[in-house]
């Protein structure tokens, strides 16, 4: 039996259902939970591609960190008690149209490209990734570290309450 294919099919379905929920549901919490589901689906897809490390990282980062952070942000900002405004029908149709156009264009470009001879899924171990990071792609590794540091500091700075000068607020 084609385990990879089956895993892929199931994961893809989960991911797509989650994605549809993430953009379509009305309650923002439902969106976030759907999003988490979609990311789990994507992690499954990565598994079927033979990149287990990547799958685990995806699940950890997105479900474990990003979605939680989004919940926090919703708590701090989203006016949940405001009256829900109805979705404008023209906007929905317009967005769908543009999105379809964009997706179609990408499909055309990617599918018609002259790719090299196809290989097949090969398990890439975490060790291999680590070696690649520290040998061929060490610059990217360092940059990512700096980027994450800067992002953290920036996030804290932006979200701070501005205290009046002199004395504690």
């Amino acid at each position, binding site marked *: 039996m084609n385990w990879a294919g089956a895993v892929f099919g199931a994961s893809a379905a989960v991911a797509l259902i989650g994605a549809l929920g993430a953009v379509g549901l009305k309650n923002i919490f439902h969106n976030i939970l759907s999003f988490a589901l979609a990311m789990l689906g994507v992690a499954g897809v990565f598994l079927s591609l033979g990149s287990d490390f990547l799958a685990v990282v995806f699940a950890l980062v997105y479900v474990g960190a990003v979605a939680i952070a989004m919940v926090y942000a919703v708590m701090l900002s989203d006016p949940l008690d405001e009256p829900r405004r109805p979705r404008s029908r023209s906007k929905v149709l317009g967005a769908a149209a543009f999105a379809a156009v964009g997706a179609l264009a990408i499909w055309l470009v990617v599918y018609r490209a002259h790719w090299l001879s196809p290989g097949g899924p090969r398990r890439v171990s975490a060790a291999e990734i680590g070696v690649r990071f520290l040998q061929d792609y060490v610059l990217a590794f360092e940059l990512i570290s700096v980027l994450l540091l800067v992002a953290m500091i920036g*996030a804290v700075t932006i979200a701070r309450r501005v205290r009046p000068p002199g004395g504690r607020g």
Partner: protein
Amino acid sequence: MTALAAYLGFSVLLFGIGLYGLLQRRSLIAMLIALELMLAAVAVNVVVLTTYAGRDPGAGQVMALVLVGVAAAETALGLSLFVAIHRAQATIDVETVSELKG
């Protein structure tokens, strides 16, 4: 259909759904969610192509990991920005906070 086509089709669909959400949702956080979906689709695409249409899957996975890092950083910053915006204008409705007008 070939495996490549299936994977690519999946990533394009995921991207399209994310794009729809980006264009349609009013709340900034909802737009961010959609954006994350798009980034995930890109990561899938990169890994798929290096695996099925290229020679170096390892490089593809490294790229995807970098992408995850970037996405996380971006999410953190974006969310703190939304908090600050909400503090200033009591809303994070993209149609209200738009000031880049002609």
